[in-house]
């Protein structure tokens, strides 16, 4: 386990050292970015809308019953911007994109494509890891901003239409604006940037260390997703503690 952690940190460091090559790899970064957006946008919309809706549904009636109707917009807004959107989107992307990264690189490893790169003096970190980590580090925060807006909209729809809550959308957003500050959204976006680095590096590392044919690829994909999610949850706590100060 400690060896794996060391390897992941080492890969992260080597990716950082490769950052000056970003411009050279820009086409690959763009391709990966497009793939992430293309593969995730619809799911992000659906998931975010219903996360916002269910948070409003869970908290709205309780708050309204206690004459705290003006807090509904704020509670939904804060919960989504600071916690739910970054974490849920990171988990979604770990499952959708992290698994694909681990599978693709793992398959390249098993079928000697990475060895072929090395024989051509092409560094796999520069060619495979850097574009993926950069693309996910750009895409996830953008998806989170998008997710926050859709989830707020979902919350407003439920707050407006549910007879137990019955708060007009205009009032919901007005209450939300009173409580949610730009820095709350920025905190969530910053968290998602950190989660993106975790997903990118962990998934690429799993891919690069794949052994043992198709079964090995399957194992790598599972490990990439599980390890990413565990690290996301752990780092969520650490980052939240840090950002609350």
């Amino acid at each position, binding site marked *: 386990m400690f060896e794996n952690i060391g390897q992941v940190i080492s890969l992260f460091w080597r990716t950082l050292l490769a950052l000056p090559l970003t411009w*050279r790899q820009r086409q690959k970064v763009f391709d990966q970015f497009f793939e992430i957006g293309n593969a995730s946008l619809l799911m992000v919309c659906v998931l975010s809308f219903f996360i916002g809706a269910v948070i409003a549904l869970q908290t709205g009636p309780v708050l309204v019953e206690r004459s705290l109707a003006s807090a509904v917009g704020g509670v939904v807004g804060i919960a989504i911007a600071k916690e739910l959107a970054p974490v849920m989107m990171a988990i979604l992307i770990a499952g959708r994109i992290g698994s694909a990264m681990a599978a693709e690189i793992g398959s*390249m490893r098993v*079928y000697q494509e990475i*060895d072929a790169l090395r*024989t*051509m003096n*092409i560094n796999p970190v520069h060619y495979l890891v850097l574009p993926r980590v950069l693309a996910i580090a750009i895409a996830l925060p953008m998806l989170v901003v998008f997710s926050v807006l859709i989830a707020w909209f979902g919350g407003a729809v439920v707050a407006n239409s549910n007879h137990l809550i019955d708060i007009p959308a205009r009032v919901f957003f007005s209450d939300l604006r009173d409580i949610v500050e730009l820095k709350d959204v920025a905190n969530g976006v910053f968290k998602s940037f950190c989660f993106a680095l975790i997903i990118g590096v962990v998934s690429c590392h799993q891919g690069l260390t794949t052994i043992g044919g198709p079964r090995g690829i399957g194992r790598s994909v599972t490990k990439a997703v599980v390890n990413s999610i565990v690290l996301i949850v752990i780092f969520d706590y650490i980052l939240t503690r840090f950002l609350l100060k």
Partner: protein
Amino acid sequence: MNGSNQNNISSGVGLVVRGLHKSFDGQEVLKGIDFEVRPGEVFVIMGPSGSGKSVLLKHLIGLEEADAGEILINGDPITAPEIAAKYRMALVFQSGALLSSLTVGENVGLYLAEHRLKSPEEIEQIVTEKLADVGLHGILHKMPSELSGGMKKRAAIARALVIEPQLILYDEPTSELDPVSAVVIGDEILELKQRIGVTSLVVSHDRDLAFGVADRIAVMADGRILTIGTPDEVKNFKDSQVQNFLNADFKREK
């Protein structure tokens, strides 16, 4: 065959392997390998599966590091940092190892594109020429998954040629190929030797290929070289292990 663009390729390099040892998890796979490949010759290493041939090949291209021993190219140790810049080596993998996400043209031109050695137009022209050199036409924009096994291997050879290599290593170049495709690959190896004088090291357990293309053959078993010689010398070598391996196919045919 189009060989007009090959005139600038320098002739092959010599390779010396001395006392190479390698173990994985306590199991010794290479037990002191010694041999020499002369510039411009086709040197074939034969041996049964699991004899350590592919591991040896990975050491020669720098994908594995030996526990002991040395590999010299024209007298320079392969571990020297300047070796990649000084000598051009290419490995044709058993599977071809074309990148499945790239077209055949992108695969063949990958070295030039990634190292920014030529403009995209020049790369396309070179790639077309190299593919034509190995008898492949009109497949520039096809994906590797659309090619047959033989075409994949020839595309892999074209990718190796783009580097303008002085040493080409082949890992089981005829495995999983039908007899006709295997003959074509053998012809390619000979053609490259004659046309550009490249040194070729072929690892294979295909007896027909080995005796068809080799200037010299080494027979390897259980991590050791059993004998080295010309095809005739190896055929007549009086050693039961060597003869058992060489005659296995004859026995099966009977």
